[in-house]
């Protein structure tokens, strides 16, 4: 998906203010041709100058013995992860400190599903004797503006009554969504799928 998004971006090109694509100017420059528009347009002339400099710099780079940055792999992986997360996003209504929707609407805001899931899982893990397992976050169709959480849990044997632990988890998920994401929790479906033994002294 990320590769497709990158491909789409590249296919769209980069339009100059005159409407011509930088890619077309580069193509003409590379082939040594120029049309009437290119001869008189200030934008195309500027692009040609910059591209010529770029081509010279590129030639210099070919001979550049510099090693790749030591953190290059980390940066690539972060970018890949961010790109993937951007495609799996939930709409978010921007609000002010009072909780009121920001007016005027300046544009769309979204948050990755995985980011919300991480907040929810962390909230569950803060309950002693509880470990979050799977977590699914979706828009709650039955509650406008709220998120629906479906999570499986593992409990430590002897940590307390399961129904109390589950209610504590539910409350912390609600608080975390409100305090860290800025949305309400709608339906929070919790399922206990495992119990692990209490460790000895």
């Amino acid at each position: 998906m990320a590769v497709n998004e990158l491909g789409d971006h590249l296919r769209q090109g980069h339009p100059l203010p005159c409407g011509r694509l930088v890619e077309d100017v580069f193509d003409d420059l590379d082939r040594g041709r120029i049309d009437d528009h290119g001869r008189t347009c200030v934008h195309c002339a500027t692009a040609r100058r910059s591209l010529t400099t770029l081509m010279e710099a590129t030639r210099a780079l070919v001979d550049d013995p510099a090693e790749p940055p030591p953190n290059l792999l980390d940066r690539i992986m972060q970018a890949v992860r961010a790109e993937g997360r951007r495609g799996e996003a939930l709409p978010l209504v921007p609000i002010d400190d009072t909780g009121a929707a920001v007016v005027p609407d300046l544009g769309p805001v979204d948050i990755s599903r995985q980011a919300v899931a991480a907040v929810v899982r962390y909230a569950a893990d803060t309950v002693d004797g509880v470990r979050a397992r799977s977590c699914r976050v979706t828009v709650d169709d039955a509650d406008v503006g709220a998120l629906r959480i479906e999570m499986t849990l593992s409990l430590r044997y002897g940590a307390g009554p399961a129904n109390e632990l589950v209610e504590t988890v539910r409350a912390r998920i609600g608080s975390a969504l409100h305090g860290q994401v800025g949305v309400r929790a709608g339906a929070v479906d919790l399922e206990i799928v495992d119990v692990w033994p209490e460790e000895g002294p």
Partner: protein
Amino acid sequence: MTTPDLDHIGGHPGDGPGDDRLVTQIRVAEVAAAAARSTPGVAHLQQGLWGLVQQLGAEAWTRVTGRPRPDTAGTEVAVRVDPVTGAVTVTVDVMLVVDGRRPAAVVAGDVQRRIGGAVYAAFGVAPGRVSVHITDVAVPG
């Protein structure tokens, strides 16, 4: 709509005629990125694959030419000029990670307002759209 003279927007001293217009997107992105980074609750801006390619290219450019490029990682800007009316439209897309100490929705609203205000203050054009994409919430551990 405001129709500022683009020749007065950004640019390096010594650039040729019209270079101001070509660098406008980078200048707007630089201002927008700085505004977003300064917003309380923003941990850092996060670039995607295309942004990383651009940044690596910018780093190589700086190394070879010695000319610095501003840090616009995580920010994409589109500047359109209507060829007939000269009206300018600016849109900004920013991708970021929040620190989890304030609600992400509040941080996003602040980022939109700050970017809008900073771009208007610098260039006299209010962005028509500021999209905010939150890719992560920095939770402890």
